[in-house]
């Protein structure tokens, strides 16, 4: 089997086990108040970090993409106007695509 196949299999198995690990932590450990509060807050930190990185990073480089930023700004406006979830996504994609079309 090729080295690439080994890398593919190792990635599949490893990623799966990492997912399983969180679910497999015993209930009594999770019930400890400190860990429970950490588990409640950690996804907020992680998802915010993910937004930031997906918006402004490319590999190890920080990069400002005008079209994408305008798209997210449009999403913020839509959210402030209480637009429904799917409309928010549609507006984001449309504004980003139009901004790119305009050469931004």
């Amino acid at each position, binding site marked *: 089997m090729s080295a690439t196949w080994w890398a*593919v299999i190792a990635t599949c198995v490893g990623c799966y086990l990492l*997912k399983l690990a*969180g679910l497999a932590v015993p209930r009594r450990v999770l019930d400890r108040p400190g860990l429970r509060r950490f*588990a409640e807050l*950690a996804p907020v*930190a992680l998802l915010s*970090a993910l937004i930031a*990185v997906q918006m402004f990073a490319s590999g*190890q480089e920080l990069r400002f993409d005008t079209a994408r930023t305008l798209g997210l700004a449009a999403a913020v406006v839509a959210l402030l106007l209480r637009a429904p979830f799917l409309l928010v*996504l549609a507006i984001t994609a449309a504004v980003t695509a139009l901004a790119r079309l305009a050469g931004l």
Partner: protein
Amino acid sequence: MEDTTTRPDQGVSAARRAGIGVGLAVGCSGVAFGAAAVTAGLDVVQACVLSLFAFTGASQFALAGAVAGGGDLVAGTAGALLLGARNTLYGLRLAGPLGVRGLRRLGVALGVIDETTAVAMAQLDNGREARPGADGAEPDEAANRRARAGFFTTFLTLYVAWNVSTLIGAVGTAQMADPAVLGLDAVGPACFLALLWPRLRSGGATRLRLVAVAGAAIALLTTPLLPPGIPVLLASVAALPALLAPREATR
């Protein structure tokens, strides 16, 4: 997604709608992965195996990138696993609400990713929040039911969409439009923002906003210094004070 507190059924259907929306919107990016994988030198089967069994976009892109660079595959695999490590933290949050035990966990685990967590968490935090740190408090069963509906709908929709679009992207590499042209690269961040939004906007969420801003700042500041995957993981440090602070301080 708004106003899910009125009737439980409405909450569950709203959660399902959000799940389908996220699943389809993000699932389309599988085309980009399929195309990137084959361009990088993986074959169609390898691209599909990754989407079927790794099923976590960032890690898959990282491995494809390593193959493309002709770089060290061990380092490439390690990078993919680092990106997948945040799913472990998601599992800690989801274990309770999902309420899965024993062998069922083996199937459910595959679905513990950014998108399913974001949708499930929006349901949990949308209605009544579980009483902070109240030992032995009754879990909010209605919120858990919404969270489960959101999780499984997102999982199913995204799994199907991601795998079908991976195949399409892998087979049709050359002909496929660039997802960036359609503005789809902004849709992922917009999804997460929309799902976090109600919670961050709610009254008394100062602490949460602080955690969110700190998380984003940590990730951006460390991006130039650390390999991809670690900055996002490191952002969880922003939630660490909760582990140490006395209970009352977290209200």
